């Protein structure tokens, strides 16, 4: 399961490492302001082309780089209704704690489940390769977590049904 994901994650890792070349860049419109250019989106010359890496139509990653910031959005595989509910709950849980995570964005980019915003401040205070490690591990962990929770619900369902119906069979 994770071996088939390796080429995909490898590709994401190398693209992210390449895109994470961020430097401080003051805002060109307003004096003395310093904003993440990818969020503002006004000046065309400081924003680079977005890249979409997709494993299949349900699982993809979008990287929008700019001169001083990078937006990384993930769309997580959701096969059925239960997985959709689990992913929605989990994403909401994480996004409410975005402050703790520093690089997490409080709202996902439309069309995706979760977004990160990494700025030059983050790359200056943290090791760049460790940040990339974190993002890749995040993607793996979410998939593992959703499958584990789905398995938990299914096995609980089996036990609940068996226990209840046993009462009729003694």
């Amino acid at each position, binding site marked *: 399961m994770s071996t088939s994901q390796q080429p995909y994650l490898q590709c994401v890792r190398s693209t992210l490492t390449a895109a994470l070349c961020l430097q401080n860049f003051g805002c060109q419109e307003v004096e003395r302001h310093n904003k993440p250019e990818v969020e503002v989106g006004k000046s065309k010359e400081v924003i680079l082309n977005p890249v979409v890496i997709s494993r299949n139509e349900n699982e993809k990653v979008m990287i929008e780089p700019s001169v001083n910031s990078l937006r990384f959005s993930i769309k997580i595989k959701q096969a059925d*209704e*239960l997985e*959709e*509910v*689990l992913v929605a*709950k*989990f994403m909401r*849980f*994480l996004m409410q*704690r975005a402050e*703790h*995570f*520093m*690089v997490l964005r409080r709202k996902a980019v439309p069309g995706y489940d979760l977004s990160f915003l990494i700025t030059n401040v983050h790359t200056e*205070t*943290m*090791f760049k390769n*460790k*940040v990339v*490690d*974190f993002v890749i*591990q*995040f993607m793996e*962990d979410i998939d593992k*977590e959703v499958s*584990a*929770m789905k398995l*938990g*619900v*299914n096995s*609980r*369902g*089996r*036990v*609940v*049904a*068996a*226990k*209840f*119906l*046993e*009462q*009729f*069979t*003694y």
Partner: protein
Amino acid sequence: MILLEGGHHMLREVLELRLGPDNAGFRERNPVDAMSIADFDDVAYCIKTKDNMFTLFFSMPGFSEISEYGVQSYLNKAYADCGVNFDFNTSTSDGKVFNFSMTFDLSTIPAIGAEAFIDNVSMIKRNVLGAPFFWYFDAIRNGTTPDLAVKIPYRKDESIYLKKGKEDSVVVVFGVTFTDKNDWVVAEVFLREFADARREPALSTAPAVSFSRTAPGELKGLTVDEGESIVFISFALFKRHWDEDKADASVSSLCQFRNYLHYHVKCSKAFMHMRMRKRVDDLLQVLNRAKPPAEGAVERKTWTGRSMN
């Protein structure tokens, strides 16, 4: 704890401490003026003790519809020889309306023994809700079942329906509401397991379960509350489930089914929260590895290798 407790824990406790000649001292020191207790499905009890007499008031929404199905005779039969007096007139106490009350003497232990009696009293709600079931089983034996299904509206918006099926089987249909969409998604997984449970060899004799969002054929001819959030779950009980001695266990389980289902759905949600919280902690730890250690934490050493503290 997977299965919910049969009787009501508080009723059991109140009685255990007070029943019998040995507890006379406790009774004197702790008279009960008016204790209000709540149970599942909006059922409310009120307990009053005076001298050695114990009175339990019972109120349940939908009692008037349920009482058409032989509740009084079933209760009298269930508590026969226990010295219990029933008063089936509605009474009000502190602004709450109660459907009936039962009174008995605490100083004597009835013939069936203290434990069995306390069990029986704590299951009063199950006895009230189960009475229509026994009435229906008797009707099948006598061949007097009504054509339409029997509706037991035990909750606002939710009812139990009883209908005779083919060859002495009884179909019990629950109309259950799920106000939260997330609850429904988890419950659907559970209900699918219920429907598939019969494939296990150990459970092949269990009742057949099925569920659907639209009212099943057994309810044809009745005005049924349908809606966005209502699902119908049908249990097909065969004769061995409702005949004679097995009927008690089957009815007890069925009376609790809806609460059992909702309880486990909420447990799953709590379990998911626990996992998510743990996962968040793990991820934060990984992120913290990305930060370089703080300035002062770096150990300072001199050129010869001695460290400064």
